[in-house]
């Protein structure tokens, strides 16, 4: 930690994992608890558009699950669970600049405690709330837009390509809804999956592969849904602008229905 005592600011480098992210934020906040002072900044290593500044001393912070958990709990006890969870959202957004927002937000939260979120006009709080809302908003959206396909063995396969690395957050929702089915949700963009085998929920890596074949029975049910989808729109009220605002095109890829008749 020699760099902290030197005059040059430290660049706390996190690896891409959630634990690594939390550890880097923890290291930065512990080194300099004053939210405004900015004696160091946090960056996720491997981000192409972020590079150490000329006078920064890079410090690689190893991912340590125990340290990450301890930091999360400490923040939760100091502020609220919602505040602590926001750091996870900032990580899952995968936006380079948000690593530094996470550091400043965590420092502010230690400073102001549970009231931190009331300070909406503060630029850091504002950015943190906005980014975390975007992530939770997408999770909520995917709870609706995810489509399962029944495979030949009766299990359900649900491919998605979310903006944020949030597919794990869908597991609990579907576990509660479909406890007697076996299903797998596949983040085809990141090659990650969360699945339920009827007894336990698990996550892991799963390479993107071609979509599994659709049985004849499944094709018939998909056809019913497509027919229903086409019938339910009122032609006199056609409104593609509103439709795309509510359901952006990037989410259409894994739908069964064909919005806009495409």
């Amino acid at each position, binding site marked *: 930690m020699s760099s902290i005592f030197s005059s040059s600011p430290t660049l706390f480098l996190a690896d891409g994992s959630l634990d690594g992210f939390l550890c880097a934020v923890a290291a930065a906040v512990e080194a300099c608890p004053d939210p405004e002072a900015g004696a160091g900044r946090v960056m996720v290593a491997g981000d192409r558009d972020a590079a150490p500044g000329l006078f920064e001393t890079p410090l690689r912070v190893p991912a340590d699950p125990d340290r990450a958990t301890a930091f999360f709990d400490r923040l939760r006890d100091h502020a609220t669970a919602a505040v602590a969870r926001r750091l996870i959202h900032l990580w899952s957004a995968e936006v380079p600049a948000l690593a530094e927002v996470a550091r400043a937000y965590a420092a502010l939260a230690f400073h102001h405690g549970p009231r931190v979120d009331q300070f*909406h006009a503060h630029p850091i709080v504002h950015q943190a709330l906005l980014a975390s809302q975007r992530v939770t908003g997408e999770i909520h959206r995917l709870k*609706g837009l995810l489509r399962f396909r029944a495979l030949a063995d009766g299990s359900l396969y*649900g491919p998605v390509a979310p903006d944020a690395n949030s597919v794990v957050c869908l597991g609990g929702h579907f576990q509660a809804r479909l406890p007697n089915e076996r299903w797998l949700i596949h983040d085809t963009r990141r090659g990650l999956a969360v699945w339920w085998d009827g007894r336990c929920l698990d996550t892991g890596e799963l390479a993107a592969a071609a979509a599994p074949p659709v049985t004849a029975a499944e094709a018939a049910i998909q056809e*019913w*849904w497509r027919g229903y989808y086409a019938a339910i729109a009122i032609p006199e*009220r*056609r409104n593609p602008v509103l439709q795309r605002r509510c*359901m952006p095109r990037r989410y259409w890829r894994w739908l069964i229905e064909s919005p806009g*008749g495409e």
Partner: protein
Amino acid sequence: MDLASKIAILGEAARYDASCASSGTRREAPAGGMGGAAMGGICHSWADDGRCISLLKILLTNYCEYDCAYCINRRSNDLPRAAFTVEEVVTLTLEFYKRNYIEGLFLSSGVTGGPDATMERLTRVAETLRTQHRFAGYIHLKAIPGASPDLLRRAGRFADRLSVNIELPSGASLQRLAPDKNRDGILQPMGLIGRGITESRAERRQSRTAPRFAPAGQSTQLIVGASPENDRHILHLAASLYSHFDLKRVYYSAFLPAGNPSLLPALTTPPLRREHRLYQADWLMRFYGFAADELLDDQHPQLDETLDPKAAWALRHPQFFPVDLNRAELGILLRVPGIGPTSARRIVSSRRFASVRFEDLAKLGVVLRRARYFIACPGQPAEIVVAAQSPERVHRLLAANDPAGNTPYPTSVPDDGMMVADAPGLPVQPWLLPPEPAPPLPLPAGKIPTPELAWGAATAVPT
């Protein structure tokens, strides 16, 4: 007839019902069952008309003995007819639900064999889903006017929501356009459902195991533009329905030229902008503390289609403005155009830290385009203050910037939830913001009078 053809016919027949909300209940799958319901509701898709698809909204049959002039399913209309069996609807619901296409079922029906036989079939679908299949998804059933109280009580045990559509905003129009229905046949079930909901809520406060009765409440729908009632009449009716029957929602549905042309106005396009303004006014009554009387009066019986109703109210009440953002209480902030419940609450909490400045407002979610002429706070540019002294000019500026004023089809059917940052024209998407309780409603002057139920055979139709 194969199932695919039935789906096409009976889906199309159901699409004129505006409601598709799946909110208001929380439920978890029972052992061996499937499904659940989320408090805020979940949209699963958006149709080509921009409306959210949350439920499988379908008719059990579009055969109908009645002849309501505004309805495509009326017996005198020549169109393909179909009927599902109970098992077919059950299968469709379960298969769609399992694939996450839908949040549940919204089942309605044309009347065949009388109201009781029809209601019994609807109830049987819900009962089969709940008891045989342990289905815990959302179920909305239409209550058929004239159905017996016993059947409605049974329906309420299985459904999350029940609704009776009033459709026509006055008794006189009902008589003229829906001769087979009558006032009592509609109001009695609404009253019964309302009582059932209140009683079950009270019982469940005593005991968690007391049976639920339509826990997500009841709603109704009014057709706009098929009959001559003005907006003032419609808003008064809505206000009285909210207070008399404890309704969750009143839906407004722009009349489409699908009805009997000899009895109905010949419209080339549906009055979508009018429908949209009514939704905004409805929101103002439910979440912003406005009374129907404040929004419209004898001199202004119709909502201004070029302006959202809150801005129109503000321009008619210059003595109320500017509102000092660092002093005004919540109920007053809510009266400012461009400030919604969320931004009002943020202003109140933010000014505890430091006084709120003009440049902070966008971050707090205030829609400055509209709010700027009605507020006072440090940092405010002087030219805005000058502009605010000229109401005609502000009216023009606001109308030019109104999102709904500039698009041919501004409308959306808001799902249950809060209006986002007071933005008119936006569908309400609960996921954009965490759910928040409705704010307390301190009114600046007077109080909301309990309106008489402004709907009945004796009501004169305004011309």
